[in-house]
């Protein structure tokens, strides 16, 4: 009886989830309602949280609610404060959720919704949430130290340095790819460009307000900022239609690229209170609000999925990104399934604020489940729009041309019926001149969101507003990430160079700061420029690199977790981290290998470089290059990308090797060798 009372309701949840998944997976010919996908996802999350995370908490970690956490031991009212778990959940979730879970699933939709959905669900339950949870636990038991410090302590100095370099490379690629998303969304879009640019004076105004007029009144200043933002969106339409202002805000990709580079440089040396902090308020609150709005919208509208469950592009011939389902789907969706970046957040501010060890499960595992849900909603948004429109928006110009007629012909040829009128109509609906080749995920998501939300509020007349609202919301937190990321990157560079030239470490000195900032901006600016001028649209090159690097960091973090489990002499439970580590290693290594050596120039960097190099030798010029210089540039870029992919492979292999060695050593030891802070050493206050 007891068993039934305890597990009976969960069995029902499980049955409901299984039924929903069965409907989603087997429905053929008839459009599936998106609600089934949502129901399936929520049931999977509930079951995983109730059983698997409890198993990890009890068996692997043996969480002890009576053991003082860093927040209790070092309570200073500032960095270390025991915090209510719901409040901390919000903090943690806001820090882990960014553009990633919104973009990856949109790109993955080219294979249909089913492969992406299954990977998001399986990935988060067995890899992503496990990583976030265990890293949080490891850091919490070690005074809230950072990932780099943890790796150095548990694996050794060299793996620590390798991980540091890895993190740096990821940051560069991440910043480039995020900036590229903004460029792709704003190219030739005066409405979008105007609203995004308007956020700068709005943020400056908010900065002055909260510095001098009413310090600390975040709610007040955010409401003021929000109203101004809405006005910017509303009047953005008139600006775009204006005969002089419209063209003044219309830019090419290259122009936007240079503006962003300049922006990144200036924004990251301005005082934080002036631009970064106020825009952080706007982007954070807007992000949370939009996520809630999207969830309500999907629940309320219950749209049908127009994209097939599985498309023929699982064979690797898709126009959005190249490569077969294995391994490329698993690196295209990183955030939402498993994201290495979270290991930096889980070993950042969160472990210093946990009030009781028992809360770690809700915050670490639960927080990641929540992010995964955002990814599922992004997937739904991309799949409720007409597949013809989806492929028109996400295919490179080289394939679909630039007019509705060429695009309609090319996309219909791919097997997705679409007419030029539909394409022109879709652009008009969202207040843009064209939607062709707006790769990068953000515009597609914006169309999907506009489609869903306008069905609930405002109807077709409001569609353009919601579209630009969605673009603005993504651009806003991407720009915040670019700004904060450039800053963080600059401190990393100063630390690294500081190892050789100690005077370089002074973060307050002007010369090192400006030099380090310039270095950082030119690093990501280089990849951004390369992406903007890429014949295949840039996303095809940069997103896989980003996915590989992000999954690589996850593999590193999970290796750390495995080593710690071995050192605690609980190796019989080590499969919890070994299985996802192995899977991530297989995916990143295969994908990395194919990105370098594949004979298909659409996938392999080297074969792409060879194609251009051969043409150069014959004195020919291949599109989109127009000059010999550009040809040389393409060859050079490809080779740089190949080197980068090789570096990532080397990193994974090195860390895995160090991890295995550490595990063997820990296994042979006859006692506990993990380096936890002794709970009794520092008495609680």
């Amino acid at each position: 009886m007891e068993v039934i009372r305890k597990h009976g309701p969960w069995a029902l949840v499980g049955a409901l989830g299984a039924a929903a998944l069965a409907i989603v997976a087997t429905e053929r010919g008839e459009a599936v309602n998106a609600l089934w996908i949502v129901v399936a996802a929520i049931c999977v999350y509930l079951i995983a949280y109730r059983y698997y995370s409890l198993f990890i908490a009890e068996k692997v970690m043996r969480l002890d609610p009576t053991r003082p956490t860093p927040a209790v031991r070092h309570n200073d009212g500032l960095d270390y404060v025991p915090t209510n778990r719901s409040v901390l959940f919000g903090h943690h979730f806001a820090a882990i959720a960014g553009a990633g879970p919104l973009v990856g699933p949109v790109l993955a939709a080219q294979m249909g919704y089913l492969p992406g959905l299954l990977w998001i669900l399986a990935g988060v339950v067995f890899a992503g949430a496990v990583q976030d949870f265990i890293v949080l636990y490891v850091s919490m038991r070690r005074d809230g130290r950072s990932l780099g410090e943890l790796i150095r302590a548990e694996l050794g100095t060299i793996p620590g340095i390798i991980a540091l370099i890895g993190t740096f490379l990821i940051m560069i690629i991440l910043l480039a790819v995020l900036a590229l998303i903004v460029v792709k969304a704003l190219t030739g879009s005066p409405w979008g460009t105007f609203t995004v640019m308007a956020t700068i004076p709005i943020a400056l105004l908010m900065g002055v307000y909260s510095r001098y007029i009413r310090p600390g009144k975040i709610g007040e200043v955010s409401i003021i900022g929000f109203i101004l933002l809405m006005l910017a969106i509303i009047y953005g339409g008139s600006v775009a239609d204006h005969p002089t202002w419209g063209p003044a805000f219309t830019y090419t990709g290259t122009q936007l690229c240079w503006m962003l580079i300049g922006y990144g440089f200036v924004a990251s040396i301005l005082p934080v209170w002036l631009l970064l902090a106020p825009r952080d308020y706007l982007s954070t609150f807007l992000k949370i609000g939009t996520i809630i709005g999207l969830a309500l919208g999907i629940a309320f509208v219950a749209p049908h999925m127009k994209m097939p469950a599985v498309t023929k592009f699982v064979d690797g011939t898709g126009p959005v990104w190249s490569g077969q389902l294995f391994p490329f789907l698993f690196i295209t969706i990183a955030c939402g399934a498993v994201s290495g970046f979270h290991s930096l957040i889980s070993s950042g501010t969160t472990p210093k604020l946990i009030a009781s060890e028992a809360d770690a499960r809700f915050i670490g595992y639960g927080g990641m489940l929540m992010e995964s849900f955002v990814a599922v909603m992004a997937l739904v948004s991309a799949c409720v729009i007409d597949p013809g429109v989806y492929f028109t928006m996400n295919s490179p110009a080289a394939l679909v041309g630039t007019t509705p007629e060429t695009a309609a012909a090319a996309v219909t040829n791919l097997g997705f019926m679409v007419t030029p009128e539909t394409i022109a109509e879709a652009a008009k609906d969202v207040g843009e001149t064209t939607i062709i080749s707006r790769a990068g995920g953000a515009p597609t998501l914006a169309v999907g969101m506009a489609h869903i939300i306008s069905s609930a509020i405002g109807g077709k007349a409001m569609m353009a507003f919601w579209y630009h609202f969605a673009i603005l919301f993504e651009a806003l937190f991407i720009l915040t990430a670019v700004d904060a990321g450039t800053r963080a990157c600059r401190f990393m560079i100063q630390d690294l160079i500081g190892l050789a030239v100690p005077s370089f470490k002074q973060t307050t000195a002007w010369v090192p700061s400006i030099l380090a900032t310039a270095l950082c901006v030119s690093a990501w600016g280089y990849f951004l420029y390369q992406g903007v001028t890429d014949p295949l649209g840039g996303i095809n090159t940069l997103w896989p690199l980003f996915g590989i690097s992000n999954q690589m960091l996850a593999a590193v973090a999970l290796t750390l977790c495995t080593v710690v489990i071995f050192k605690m002499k609980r190796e019989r439970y080590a499969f919890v981290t070994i299985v996802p580590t192995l899977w991530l290693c297989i995916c990143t290594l295969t994908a990395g290998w194919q990105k370098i050596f594949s004979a298909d120039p659409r996938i392999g960097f080297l074969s792409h470089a060879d194609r251009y190099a051969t043409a150069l030798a014959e004195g020919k010029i291949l599109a989109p290059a127009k000059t010999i210089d550009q040809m040389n540039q393409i060859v050079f870029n490809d080779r740089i990308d190949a080197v980068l992919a090789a570096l990532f492979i080397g990193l994974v292999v090195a860390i895995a090797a160090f991890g295995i060695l550490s595990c063997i050593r820990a296994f042979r030891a006859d006692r506990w060798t993990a380096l936890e802070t002794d709970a009794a050493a520092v008495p609680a206050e």
Partner: protein
Amino acid sequence: MTASSQDLRDRWKSFSKCVCDGARLMVGQGDYEVYAAHVRKTHPDQTPMTEREFFRNRENARFGVGNRNGFRCC
């Protein structure tokens, strides 16, 4: 009747405080009252920072020189 409406009001109060605290902590601003109470209790000899100083201190701890706490995930 009055008892339950009082109860409801208290619940609403604690819920809205939780939401506000959550929103503030999302942008790196902890609870000033908790901080001030902590300083008064454990370091009676020190004067806690004013609310304005606390606000700037937290802003700096999140994004300021040498700090990487404000960095966001993808």
